[in-house]
């Protein structure tokens, strides 16, 4: 396997233009002769399918939900960054690029990030033209806010539903193409394998989730925009259905998987309330602007009502440890410290599996200082959401929060064209690893999904098709196709007929999640990772022996769907731990306890300024590492410090 980034050279601000000028095109009349499969209908997949359809390609788009409008991009609350500099506060494409590279802790590719910053501007234009109702000022111009500690106001938002509105924009554009017949939409259809023929991605095998029918779909190329793998932790802020199957199937066919250990933990989520918990809900980070984080100083106080704990017995640990930034330290620092204080037995809230994993986020002072009305105006909807879930009013008693997995920076390795190591297989959005390095900045996920979908993929796909010109026809009865279909059917049969069926897939998923969360979560060490690497294969073996799926494969069977996804999480989880073990440094979302200085992450630029791209070898415990070295011509690596 060879990793060629295929990034253009020369001044960074001209690279994307230069690349476009030297790329192949497909003539408008020829486009309908090319068929493209897009898997996923979120911001990246929906936007790509719509745009490719508009250009005249013959597109088939797949999603597991009952409608493309439900992809998990819809749940993004905060906003989308763009270097418009509407606020005249000195923002620029270069500054957004700089912030993103630095925020990613110098583990991303400069050329890709610069292009992302360039395209951010066009995304806003496109979304506004589609009718996305962004927040506006009284003068009628677009409003912005500062987000996630950025020093400029470059975030565009639509109430707390920015992801929803942007996704509906893409969905509507996609709907228009469905009506025009350029896109065929296949909802409730899950990709279960990739078809590779002559070394190129030529199709997918799917299962219709209502009838159970397994079918091949042949095309000239395949695009995976299938989201992240945060559900490997079982509990995350992802939707229940989010899974890594499409990406993992591609990986098993030869697509390198990059930086799997780079996962992002969000510090302000509602804590788990019981072992039955199915997902975690994120609360906007803006709450930390006015809320003070604390736990009791004494273990004896953890079960007391917070109101009964006097000021002197409250441990405002972020304020004490980080006087300069206090409660506003970055996500990873806030998360890790919550882990440490709860490890010390100072956690509050409900006891789950013998542990109290919660810290207070207290608005008492802010309410006294600003009045309840002001707090209500700022956070009213969030407080309401909290009360609905936790059953307590944050106006009366402190909120309880705890970190949760929110986003995965790792993903399929792609070159500058967003092509994976399998020719003809492209990947966009959270599914690829491309732009966020070791840590993603707030309001950048929507930006990347849409940049990939609207502006990068439609173009680089044309380049690919222009280069290959004509691909030999591939019939559905070709051995490569029937073999892929057969393998899928075989796997379904295995899942349905475990030798000693005992437990539902969730039983195993929860156990796997627990291992990954405690040993490859916010804070990692060699011992724990090695332990995880001993535990995961054993649990996986037990899963294949004891998983219990009722009903049949030839009907709507949600248990079967989950079982297949959990099976792949086992293999991905193992790769995550291997990657985390190999990366002997702390950077971004990856914190290795052996590599720290006074509690702060210690990056090792000399040893680890590279992308880890893992190749499948047939044995999940023994993948092959390939390194893509990273160079920084424009942003000099510097150390993060928040003391």
């Amino acid at each position: 396997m060879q990793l060629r980034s295929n990034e253009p050279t020369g001044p960074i601000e001209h690279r994307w233009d230069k690349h476009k000028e030297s790329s192949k095109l497909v003539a408008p009349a020829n486009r309908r002769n090319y068929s493209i499969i897009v898997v996923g209908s979120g911001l990246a997949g929906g936007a790509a399918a719509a745009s490719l359809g508009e250009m005249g390609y013959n597109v088939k788009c797949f999603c597991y939900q009952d409608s493309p409008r439900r992809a998990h991009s819809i749940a993004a609350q905060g906003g989308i960054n763009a270097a418009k500099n509407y606020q005249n506060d000195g923002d620029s494409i270069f500054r957004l690029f700089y912030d993103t590279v630095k925020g990613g802790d110098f583990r991303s590719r400069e050329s890709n990030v610069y292009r992302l910053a360039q395209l951010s501007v066009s995304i806003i234009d496109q979304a506004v033209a589609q009718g996305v109702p962004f927040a506006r000022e009284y003068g009628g111009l677009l409003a912005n806010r500062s987000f996630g500690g950025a020093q400029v106001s470059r975030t565009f938002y639509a109430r707390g539903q920015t992801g929803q509105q942007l996704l509906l924009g893409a969905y509507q554009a996609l709907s228009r193409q469905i009506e025009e017949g350029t896109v065929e939409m296949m909802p409730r259809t899950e990709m279960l394998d990739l078809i590779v023929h002559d070394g190129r991605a030529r199709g997918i095998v799917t299962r219709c989730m209502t009838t159970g029918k397994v079918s091949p779909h042949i095309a000239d190329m395949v695009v995976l925009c299938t989201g992240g793998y945060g559900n490997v932790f079982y509990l995350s802020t992802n939707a229940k259905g989010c899974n890594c199957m499409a990406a993992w199937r591609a990986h098993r066919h030869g697509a390198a998987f990059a930086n799997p250990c780079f996962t992002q933990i969000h510090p302000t989520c509602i804590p788990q309330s019981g072992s039955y918990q199915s997902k975690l809900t994120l609360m906007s980070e803006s709450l930390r602007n006015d809320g003070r984080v604390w736990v009791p100083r004494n273990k004896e106080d953890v079960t007391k009502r917070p109101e009964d704990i006097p000021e002197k017995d409250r441990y405002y640990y972020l304020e004490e440890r980080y006087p300069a930034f206090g409660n506003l330290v970055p996500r990873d620092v806030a998360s890790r410290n919550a882990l440490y204080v709860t490890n010390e037995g100072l956690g509050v809230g409900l006891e789950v599996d013998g542990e109290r994993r919660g810290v207070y986020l207290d608005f008492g002072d802010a309410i006294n200082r600003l009045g309840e009305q002001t707090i209500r105006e700022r956070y009213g909807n969030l407080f309401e959401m909290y009360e609905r879930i936790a059953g307590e009013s944050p106006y009366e008693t402190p909120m309880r929060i705890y970190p949760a997995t929110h986003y995965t920076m790792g993903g399929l390795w792609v070159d500058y064209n967003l092509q994976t190591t399998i020719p003809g297989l492209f990947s966009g959005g959270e599914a690829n690893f491309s732009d966020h390095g070791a840590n993603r900045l707030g309001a950048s996920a929507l930006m990347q999904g849409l940049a990939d979908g609207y502006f990068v993929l439609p173009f680089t796909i044309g380049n690919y098709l222009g280069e290959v010109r004509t691909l030999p026809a591939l019939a559905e009865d070709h051995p490569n196709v029937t073999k892929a279909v057969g393998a899928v059917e075989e796997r379904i049969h295995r899942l349905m007929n475990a030798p000693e069926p005992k437990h539902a897939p969730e039983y195993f998923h929860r156990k796997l999640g627990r291992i990954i969360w405690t040993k490859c979560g916010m804070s990692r060490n060699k011992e724990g990772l090695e332990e995880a690497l001993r535990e995961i294969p054993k649990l996986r073996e037990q899963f294949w022996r004891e998983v219990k799926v009722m009903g049949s494969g030839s009907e709507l069977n949600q248990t079967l769907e989950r079982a297949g996804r959990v099976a792949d999480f086992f293999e991905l989880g193992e790769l995550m731990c291997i990657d985390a073990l190999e990366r002997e440094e702390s950077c971004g979302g990856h914190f290795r306890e052996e590599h720290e200085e006074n509690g702060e992450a210690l990056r090792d630029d000399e040893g680890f300024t590279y992308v880890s791209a893992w190749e499948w070898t047939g044995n999940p415990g023994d993948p092959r590492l390939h390194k893509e070295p990273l160079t920084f011509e424009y942003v000099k690596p510097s150390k993060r410090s928040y003391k």
Partner: protein
Amino acid sequence: MSEELLNLTLHVWRQDGPNDPGRFETHQANGISTHMSFLEMLDVVNEDLIEKGKSPIAFDHDCREGICGSCGMVINGVAHGPQKLTTCCQLHMRQFKSGDEIWLEPWRASGFPVVKDLIVDRSALDRIIQAGGYISIRTGSASEANEMPIAKAIADHAMDAAECIGCGACVAACPNASASLFTAAKISHLSLLPQGQAERQDRARKMVAQMDAEGFGGCTNHGECEAACPKGVSLQWIARMNRELVRAVVSSDSGV
């Protein structure tokens, strides 16, 4: 924060497929924590059913934070259940008492055929959007976003209409099984904005025609849709849709 454990009796609609007869099946759900969400309660029941070798209850769900619109079931006769402005994934068991009997049914409307148990086919809503619920703007052909100021009040108003999550509760709650609130919200969102003017009349005509073709009933102002809507989408949009439609019908075909 105090936790209570509930013992509940569930009467759940079970139906194997669109053409199979349905029936209510009774299940006990014991030791249910008041901190559970409604769907977590169903997860617990399902896991128990699987361990006992029985077929679990099929229901749609995904984000479980009230925004994707996947979930939806009629709980004791009310779409999404007893809590106002709350999807059933955000409904928590503290809204119930020990000993309660809970009746669970799918959305019932001829436009939403049952797929299995509590899952229905809502693709009719997608087809209403496909008929015209968009602004035709090719990728890359947009002009500078701030070139066209839009009064804040108008933008906010459009956002109110755009809040719809497409769950279909409005249809399930309506005695006529009308999809008027869903259709009206999209027509209103786009017709309020200057970007949506070029296709305004065509859009209203096509979307309403598609809504009718899908077999949804007409609106007779019961207001049940607004009451059931988890996002509080207002009945006023239906009045606006009717005005848009009249405007479209009385004008010539070209819309000028």
